[in-house]
């Protein structure tokens, strides 16, 4: 380990109490006892890694250390805001990982580690030895990066609801209580951001809810970017459903003829998107006055939902795995950290070039499980393969997607060239089927990760 890392580590030890000399932990060795893989983080990436390690080699000992006793899935969590599902329906248990696969799941918070002796320390005083460590920490939100915004404000008045929980419920309650004709504002995040639950899908589901319950209500998106993944297919949906006029430079390939053409709306629609080039970048939030100051002026709103800038989950920084931008550089074949040998980083937190989605984390986890077993067995590294599909809804029965296959080329994760998005001339049936499959995917995906 580098001197800098060593200093960081010594500081960590100082902050958390030094390891007792000699340990008091049982560390597995390659010879004799089964190798032990410890996974920090029990989200999609961590759970899938643990399950696929056991599926591939049931003799390997696998332990997940996760701070929450139950997983609350972020994908699909905007459906709590529009009342399609309850918070309870987002909950996923670790029971199947324990009982079906024999994975140990410890509810505890990691406070530090000794990467040389390969021991993880927890707030609960546990010292857990490992042969390989997999870190799947998700993201942390930087509420304070926006002037006038903070975690305290997010929890009481202007929720983010990006990591699902009480803020998601608060946002749902605020939408229901909004005055007739009020404005629901979404402050979209800068790149890169963890996609689920999808800022633009959330805007759509709120607009759909308003059509039924508050038809003169409005949705406004303030955006520090000039585009987003699935922007053209989403804008066509907004055009058809919410009176949105597609900006001139997004009109290429839009259906003009046929039975479901893009329309030119005369009045303002119920959904407005203000990109960076039109002054959509937010400078300041005034929570007391419920005002948002963007580059194009001050906007008053009745409900404000902020998706703050984000970086790799906190534990990644604590373990010295992040770069100066706050993400984790990795070897693209094995997901081994470029900062710390013996440690692998997957999911939203790693700098892989893949979209920061649950689907990406799931396929990265399987590649990593294989790589970890190859490394432990001292076999040559296997050839990897990945996929990502992000479904999105413009309405409950209006689906779309981006779908990609990734292969390793010159040791870099590379997208295989080909079509990515739902065609703009997709039929009503195709659009509806995308929504049907999106809903079915919630279950098949959760099962592949956790059951």
């Amino acid at each position, binding site marked *: 380990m580098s001197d800098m890392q060593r200093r960081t580590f010594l500081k960590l030890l100082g902050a958390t109490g030094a390891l007792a000399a000699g340990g008091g932990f049982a560390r597995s060795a390659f010879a004799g006892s089964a190798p032990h893989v410890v996974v920090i983080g029990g989200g999609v990436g961590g759970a899938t890694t643990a399950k696929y390690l056991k599926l591939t080699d049931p003799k390997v000992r696998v332990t997940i250390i996760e701070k929450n006793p139950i997983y609350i899935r972020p994908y699909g969590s905007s459906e709590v805001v529009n009342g399609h599902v309850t918070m309870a329906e987002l909950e996923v248990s670790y029971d199947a990982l324990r009982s079906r696969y024999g994975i140990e799941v410890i509810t505890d918070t990691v406070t530090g580690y000794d990467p040389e002796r390969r021991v993880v320390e927890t707030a609960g005083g546990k010292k857990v030895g490992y042969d390989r460590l997999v870190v799947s920490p998700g993201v942390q939100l930087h509420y304070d990066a926006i002037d006038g915004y903070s975690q305290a404000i997010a929890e009481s008045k202007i929720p983010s609801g990006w990591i699902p929980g009480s803020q998601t419920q608060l946002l749902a309650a605020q939408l229901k209580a909004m005055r007739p004709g009020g404005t629901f504002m979404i402050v979209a995040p800068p790149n890169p951001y963890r996609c689920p639950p999808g800022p633009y899908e959330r805007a759509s589901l709120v607009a759909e809810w308003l059509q039924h319950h508050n038809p003169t209500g409005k949705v406004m998106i303030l955006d520090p970017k000039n585009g987003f993944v699935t922007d053209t297919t989403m804008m066509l949906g907004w055009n058809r459903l919410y009176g949105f006029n597609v900006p001139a430079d997004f009109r290429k390939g839009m259906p003009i003829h046929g039975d479901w053409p893009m329309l030119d709306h005369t009045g303002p629609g119920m959904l407005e998107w203000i990109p960076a080039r039109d002054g959509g970048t937010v400078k300041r939030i005034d929570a007391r006055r419920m005002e948002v100051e963007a580059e194009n002026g001050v906007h008053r709103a009745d409900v404000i939902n902020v998706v703050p800038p984000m970086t790799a989950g906190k534990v990644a920084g604590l373990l010295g795995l992040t770069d100066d931008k706050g993400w984790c550089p990795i070897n693209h074949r094995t997901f081994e950290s470029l900062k710390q040998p013996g440690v692998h980083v997957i999911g939203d937190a790693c700098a892989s070039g893949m979209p920061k989605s649950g689907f990406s984390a799931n396929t990265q986890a399987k590649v990593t499980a294989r790589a970890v077993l190859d490394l432990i067995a001292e076999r040559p590294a296997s050839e990897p393969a990945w*996929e990502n599909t992000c479904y999105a809804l413009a309405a409950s029965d209006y689906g779309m997607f981006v779908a990609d296959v990734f292969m390793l080329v010159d040791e870099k994760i590379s*997208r*295989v060239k080909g079509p990515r998005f739902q065609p703009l001339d997709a039929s009503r049936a195709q659009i509806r089927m995308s929504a049907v*499959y999106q809903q079915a995917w919630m279950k098949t995906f959760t099962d592949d990760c956790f059951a």
Partner: protein
Amino acid sequence: MKLSVLLFAAAGACSASAWAQPQASGETMANTCAACHGTHGRVGEDVAMVPLAGMDKGEFIRAMRDFRSGKRPSTLMHHVASGFTDAEVEAMAEFFAAQSLKGGER
């Protein structure tokens, strides 16, 4: 794993059919299908997606080829099938054909 690695200057993205490079195993590629089609291709009977476990090898290959050409209409399977070569599809087909639908003891 193939040892003969043909090195071509691949700028940016790789094409699905252009050149030989080491191929991932059928299982590794099949694992990328599992998020929708279930672990090892096993999904419940009440799910919209088709189970792939135990599917006849020829049927799988034909389906992927027809998705890719557009002969068989789809939502996103045209996109996914376009990401794999014939040899990769065949390796996945062999893996799924060897899986039992019920899975037994997992």
